[in-house]
């Protein structure tokens, strides 16, 4: 890739981040991570308290891309067929016809995913991994780009069903939005005073442009030592004393792809160790299962990943012995 292409990539990323930033105030890093996930055709789990702007973020991203957007509100009585679609008997034509569910969209917001039953949660596995849906005997491919943005509330656990590990592993990144600062909250109030900026949000990138950008991300160069560095971090999670189940090879692959996308978003055609470090917590922490003793001691998987990152040597020139 040449410099002009890098600049063009940076331009696309800046356009999208800027456009979403008109609605979501001061959360550039979160928007950037959502974009990274989108470029890897991965899915994002947004975990934060209610009223932070999770749904607004998903909607703003979908509108900015000019893509189709559907929302699934997860409830305990939601059925798999409510998500995937059904075959119904059309009395006019006297034939069974397929009526697609809300999963047939480019951006799908699965709100409060942990309120759906495990049966319904599991129907998302095929959609998220293979980008297709099987109803009865028919397999239907999902549109491209396809991305699931799921949200869950980490505080309120009554009447919820924790996501199984297989489901969590399918999310490329888990991000938090966090409360805004005082200034940011003031800006939100003034922006939303008359009308929601989301209503007038225009599309800034066409889906084709996005797919082209995705192709370029795959061509971002990853030097051997940087790749080994990512592997070392992932493998360290498997031997850590506080972790019962470490990150899977899918996690390594996810970290690798996400680092390529992040480099492209930041206008580089090569990955640097900072990209790996930056993505280690969002890409790995949600896939780990901590030991009970560690949980009782108040150790979170995020803290463990941070600890691992602070001990794995970064591939730089040989350290001088005299120091």
């Amino acid at each position, binding site marked *: 890739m040449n410099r002009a292409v890098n600049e063009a990539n940076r331009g696309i990323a800046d356009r999208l981040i800027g456009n979403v930033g008109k609605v979501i105030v001061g959360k550039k890093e979160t928007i950037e991570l959502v974009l990274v996930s989108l470029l890897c055709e991965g899915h994002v789990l947004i975990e934060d308290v209610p009223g932070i702007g999770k749904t607004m973020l998903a909607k703003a991203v979908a509108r900015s891309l000019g893509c189709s957007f559907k929302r699934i509100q997860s409830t305990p009585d939601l059925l798999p067929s409510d998500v995937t679609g059904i075959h119904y008997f059309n009395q006019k034509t006297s034939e069974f016809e397929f009526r697609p569910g809300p999963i047939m969209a480019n951006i799908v917001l699965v709100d409060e995913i942990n309120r759906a039953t495990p049966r319904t949660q599991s129907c998302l596995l095929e959609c998220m991994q293979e980008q297709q849906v099987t109803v009865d005997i028919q397999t239907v491919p999902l549109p491209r780009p396809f991305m699931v943005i799921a949200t869950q509330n980490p505080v309120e656990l009554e009447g919820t069903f924790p996501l199984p590990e297989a489901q969590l592993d399918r999310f490329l990144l888990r991000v938090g939005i966090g409360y805004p600062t005082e200034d940011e909250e003031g800006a939100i109030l003034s922006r939303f005073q008359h009308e929601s900026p989301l209503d007038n949000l225009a599309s800034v990138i066409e889906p084709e442009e996005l797919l082209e950008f995705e192709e370029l991300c795959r061509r971002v*160069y990853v030097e051997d030592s940087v790749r080994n560095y990512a592997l070392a971090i992932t493998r360290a999670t498997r031997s850590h004393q506080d972790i019962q189940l470490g990150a899977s090879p899918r996690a390594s692959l996810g970290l690798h792809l996400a680092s390529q996308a992040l480099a492209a978003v930041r206008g580089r055609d*090569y990955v*640097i*160790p*900072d990209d790996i470090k930056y993505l280690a917590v969002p890409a790995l922490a949600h896939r780990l299962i901590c030991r009970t003793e560690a949980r009782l001691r108040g150790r979170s998987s995020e803290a463990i990943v941070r600890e691992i*990152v602070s001990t794995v*040597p*970064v591939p730089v020139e040989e350290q001088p012995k005299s120091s």
Partner: protein
Amino acid sequence: MKTGWQKILLYAAIMGMEGCWLYAFMALLNKQVAGGRLSVPGILLLYPLAFVCNRLLQQLRWPKAGNWSVSWLAWALAMLLVVKVQMFGDLPLTDTAWLLSLHRSIAGVIYNFKPELLLLLSTGVVWWMGRRLAYLKVDFGAMLSEFQFGVSILIIAFFAVSQLSVELTNAVSVALVFFLFALSGISIAHAMEGTSWLSGLYQGHWSGLLLVSISLVLLLGLLIGSVITPDFLQLVIAAVKWVLHLILKVIAFLVSLLPRPEPGEPPPPMPAMPAPEPAEQFRLWRMPESVRSALRIGWTVMVIGILLFSLWRLSSDIFRWLRHRLAGMAGAEFEPLPGAFKADLLSLLKRMLSRLRGLRLPFRLGLKADAVLPDIASVRQMYRQFLRWAAAGGYPRHMSQTPNEYFHRLAGLLPEAEGDLDVITRQYGKVRYGASLPTEGELHRMSRSWHRVRQIRLKKKEASLNE
């Protein structure tokens, strides 16, 4: 001083340095081969002649082949002139006897190394060096490599002189003149780059300061030379011998304390060997003497060729290594760094080992090439120096710190150098992780930044921050 004059002085300094060791070698060969009949300064006159001639040819901008041909044609004429003047001065120019003598000496190189051949070779070498100098880009790096190479050659020449017991009366003068040229040239080259103290406050008095410095160095050399006399060295050697003798005596005494083995029965004498049968002589074809002579010449030429080729490869490797080192340290000042010598030595040994591995051609397919391009190696070398500099200042990089994190840490300590630190870090990241070749401008920018950063004393900065 104007730049034009500085350039002329630099060329003169290189010419002087090379002239000194050429003189030492030629004087040695003159004594050995020609019995001191040849005039070495006369041969050395070709050096400036070759330089001027090739500079003029350079100005003409002819095609390379034409330029080369004219230059070596000029050498042939100059060589013939030198042979005529030095060896056959009494013969008229029209007499072809001296030309035949030159031809005979070349043809009989296997049997005898004649003065004519020495003249031929020495004028060739001198002409080549003059031509090389005409095309050389003189700068600090070139001066330094000339000095290093010259010192080595001069030491070898003096060693050969002492071993062959050749009378070289003006050896001290040659050494002094060599150092005079070397020190002057290095100082001027350093000053030209505008990085030495001479380009600072003392710019107005630099020539005086330079002369005083060089005089002091030479005076010191003379003083040391007058103290360490042959008698003094003999005394030191005698003392060492006496100590060794004493140690041997002690060892002999200790050995005498050990019990000696009992002498056993001598073994019976061996029976006499039967006389061998006289070998049947069978000769299919006897090689004529002329063929034998031709083969001998061919064999000698081949051996000399192999020797010259190996010498050329060896010297070109040394030069490439020197150039590589100097390119990596362009604009850098030399200062003692802990562990640097060890690292260099290990690197050299590794390279030699890899070369030896490279000889196993049939097995090379399995080996992974680990060659790094010189520009990339320069950037990485500069970053290693930067790491050592920061570590020496008390701020080593933590093993889990990325170059960017390390940059932010150092930039917090040295806000005035933030721009330079950014250039170094950014360029290193691009080369190290992006595997992209730096442009000449980028290399220069990084080199300048590193030069400015290393001027800062990190320890002092820390002290001032604490205050």
